[in-house]
């Protein structure tokens, strides 16, 4: 288990976070019904609007139509049938975008059995009923980059989702977002921290050189695979008969997509030497790494990262929980940003994701980042990193109405999410959540009572073996970073 040593300067922040979480935690045991407040036209009025890209508007309003931001400004006239959200005294920001998430995954975060598990696809196992989706909504998260774990040098394919709680898996996928694939460098893929099970052969690699070798080997195979298929297609088009096609290999196909620029690479990494190694290897094979994840020593090689053009998605202030995190410093975000790297703050954890706004604020204290630049760390920057900045990440006319209403400036320790809106629909409403609890508790009691009576009526049937029908309440799996 990793040791978390957080730099906690402000005990109040911690206290508020705990209170907010407890409030949500109690609600977790009885989920609100899936019916969402949907509306064709919505007006959010009289708030401080932090557009992120177009300045701040005091006492402003936002008009939402058909899920898009239709108007933003100081004086907006809404049609009479509009749903009005009175946000007087509140702050509205773009929805939080978490660039490193493991929520909503069914049946294991890591296909850790083989060194290269690119045949596995997170898209296939998206679990829309994971309670963490709702918890993160309550923390303002609207978009999450759902990643495979870091057990392999090359992990599974990844998917961007919108946290549309209550809809089926197909409707959670962020339509049009470029699919991704997860790489991992360092201690996790070389399994430094695992107990050896007697009789079980240990999976390769066991060293950082081995991690590099896995990536090189797989891409060499992908290059060859692509060539085989290109040759076959060319001969077929030229009219060759009776050809035997090459085998389709689900593992190599996503790697070919990487080579062709059709799939983003998100690489978990820590140490400066392995970061540079990966950039070198990518250049050799002619593909681009899209984001470096965690990248805790990124500040050491910020110039190289800026020159390469890779995004950096990192923790605010985690350090020292394993050897490769020893040189982490809370100035990482600010230092990389100063050198021109696009930086985002991420969670890698369902709980952490509920306060990414406050994690971003730490860059103000550690590195002197400006308020507005710190806002970018969890909004427009991760949107750019994921290639979805034309849709989300700031409050601009024409973009998706993905918004969060806070009761204080989101960078304040006092900020608590009041409402989280995606595509103009309110998916989390704090007041409504609290108001619904008695009703849900009653329903729960009624069901417990009904079951008790049914069991008593049958004369106590005792230990009935459970069939394969397990309840859909998912268990939060042990997750890698």
């Amino acid at each position, binding site marked *: 288990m990793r040791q978390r040593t957080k730099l906690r300067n402000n005990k109040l922040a911690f206290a508020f976070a705990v209170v907010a979480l407890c409030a949500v935690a109690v609600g977790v045991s009885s989920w609100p019904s899936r019916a969402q407040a949907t509306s064709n036209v919505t007006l959010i009025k009289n708030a401080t609007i932090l557009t992120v890209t177009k300045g701040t508007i005091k006492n402003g309003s936002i008009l939402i139509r058909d899920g898009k931001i239709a108007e933003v400004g100081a004086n907006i006239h809404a049609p009479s049938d509009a749903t009005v959200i009175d946000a007087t005294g509140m702050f509205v920001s773009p929805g939080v975008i978490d660039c490193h998430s493991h929520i909503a995954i069914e049946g294991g975060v890591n*296909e850790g059995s*083989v060194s290269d598990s690119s045949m596995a696809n997170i898209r296939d196992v998206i679990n*829309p009923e994971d309670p963490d989706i709702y918890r993160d909504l309550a923390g303002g998260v609207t978009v999450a980059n759902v990643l495979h774990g870091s057990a392999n040098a090359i992990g599974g394919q990844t998917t961007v989702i919108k946290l549309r709680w209550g809809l089926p898996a197909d409707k959670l996928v962020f339509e049009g977002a470029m699919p991704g694939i997860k790489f991992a460098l360092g201690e996790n893929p070389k399994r430094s921290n695992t107990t050896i099970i*007697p009789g079980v052969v240990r999976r390769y690699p066991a060293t950082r050189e081995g991690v590099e070798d896995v990536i090189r080997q797989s891409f060499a195979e992908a290059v060859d695979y692509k060539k085989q298929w290109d040759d076959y297609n060319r001969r077929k088009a030229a009219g060759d008969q009776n050809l035997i096609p090459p*085998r389709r290999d689900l593992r190599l196909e996503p790697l070919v997509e990487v080579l062709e620029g059709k799939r983003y690479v998100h690489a978990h990494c820590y140490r400066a030497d392995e970061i540079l190694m990966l950039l070198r290897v990518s250049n050799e094979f002619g593909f681009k790494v899209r984001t470096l994840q965690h990248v805790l020593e990124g500040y050491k090689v910020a110039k190289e990262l800026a020159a390469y053009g890779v995004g950096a998605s990192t923790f605010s202030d985690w350090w020292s929980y394993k050897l490769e995190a020893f040189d982490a410093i809370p100035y990482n975000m600010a230092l990389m940003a100063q050198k021109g790297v696009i930086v985002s703050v991420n969670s890698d954890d369902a709980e952490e994701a509920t306060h990414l706004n406050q994690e971003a604020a730490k860059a103000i204290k550690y590195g002197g980042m400006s308020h507005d630049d710190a806002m970018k760390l969890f909004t427009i920057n991760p949107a750019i990193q994921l290639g979805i900045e034309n849709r989300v990440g700031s409050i601009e006319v024409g973009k998706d109405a993905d918004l969060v209403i806070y009761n204080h400036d989101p960078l304040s320790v006092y900020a608590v999410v009041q409402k989280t809106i995606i595509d103009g629909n309110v998916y989390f409403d704090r007041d409504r959540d609290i108001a619904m609890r008695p009703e849900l508790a009653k329903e729960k009691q009624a*069901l417990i009572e009904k079951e008790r009576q049914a069991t008593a009526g049958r004369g106590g049937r005792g230990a009935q*073996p459970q069939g394969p*029908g397990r*309840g859909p*309440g998912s268990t939060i799996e042990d997750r890698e970073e």
Partner: protein
Amino acid sequence: MRVRGVGRILPALMAAACALIVWVVVAAHHARADEPPFFAIKNARIVPVSGPPIPNGTIVISRGVIQAVGANVSVPPEARVIDGAGMTVYPGLVDAGSDVGLGAVAAPVAGGGRGGGGGRGAIAANVPLSMGPEDRPATTPWENAAGMLHSDDARIESWRNAGFTTALVIPRTGYFPGQAAVVDLGTAERTESLVVKTPAALPINLQGGRGEYQGFPSALMGQLSYVRQVFIDAQWYTQAMQAYEAHPQGRERPAYDHTDVVISHVLANKELVIWPGETDTQILRAIRLAPTLGARWALSGAQQGYAVPNEIAAANVPVFINVNWPAPAAAGGAAGGRGGGGGRGGEETDTLRTLRFRDRAPSTPAALNKAGVKIAFMSGGVTNPKDTLRNVAKSIAAGLPADAALRALTLGAAEILGVSDRLGSIEPGKIANLVVTDGDIFADRTNVKYVFVDGKLYIPPPVVEAPGGGGRGGRGGGGPGGEDLSGTWTLTFQTEQGPDTATAVLQMAPDGTLGGTISSHMGTAQLTRGRLNGQSFQFSISMQINGADMQVDFSGKVAGNQITGTINVGGYMLDFTGSRPNSGGEGVRQ
């Protein structure tokens, strides 16, 4: 003195006598020695399923086949007649998914190909782990349930006594455990002679979330990619072999792979692939992914189908519904699966989501039936087959019309399995699989009086329902071998850290199936796949080791109040002994 004429008559007489003997022997053989050539059930209420019920009718059976059915049917004089007054005759019930007939659960299996676990087997020691799809982990599609039948599986009889004459028998272990067979639940010298049709279907198992280092695939996403890769490989193999056979000279020979060959036959013969899905998410995932295999398919499980009936109907797939509805855990035990037990602070209750699921699951058959989905029912691992009828009765209470329920258990199942031309209804020409009851088949106090399987008569013994209350009561007589493992056992075993103990609270059902819990300082776990056969028993539990779920298998022998055996933890073997209190345990039994 010689009498003229005798010389000619005697040989003729002898010839005639021989002919007669031969004819009698042959006739007797045809009539299957010791059985009457005809059976008739008279004056019974008949529910053919294929047509309206006959309030007072007669059925004539001969040679395993229904000869006549109707209100006025002539009965051959030599028929053995059963007086059906006050009785109802139904077509024999079909359990559309079970391991009945496969006998005791085998010791942990490496599975086909290289060890990779899969199915529910633990890793056998020293078997190399699967390092990718090409190693074909736990993949044995060439196996067939027909070749795995065990006549000593007591459940064949107990299922039949509850009215089930036919089962779709599904092999157990592996991602591709082997092909299923439709089997009649009779008794025969060669059990495999009871197979009605095979291959009947190709089941797939998906586990989701096993330990990361038990070989590929370990996570659900890996398993899904593996299944797809196998079908892709089979399609490539078909294409490659066609091209190769057309002109082998000068070409590299496509590498042989037995799985490829079998799966390509499955595809060519349009065999039914069974894809599992219990929750609405899993069902929708099945609807999305199963078609990519390029095969005909059916959904199995579907306990949360009540949430997505229209999507299932739109997918146009038949569904084998697992009617073993989720029940609240026994007091003090762990909640079902891993979905429950959510309470914070003092009280441990299941989550509202789990409660809603348990409440609504029995309404799934009604919802699917209303949406026009073809359904059949799987017993889903119950120990008492009568519970399957009780479970179906719950669905009727939840809105499924009774005749739709009966149809799903008979002709509907036969249609999905492609045997409706010979099974599933009471019509002349069909196999004589019948169940005769003294009341409505879904009523709890109804008894099964007679069962016909392949036209052979079986009379169930009078029902003595094992007292179910409290789960602790065994019954006198014990399992098939006379032993009864019910009770509280103290187990001792040696680990590398020294001696250790655990407590096993076991309940044994009349047919030898074991349930219960194992408790130790590492926690409490529910038994799965527990069985006693004679003196030998086995059971498994799931434990968390290094954050991964591992299956721990117990096997051994019982003698009175002592047990000895072996524990298998991921290939690592430990010996154990166990004992139960001498008189205290006995006294609890009724």
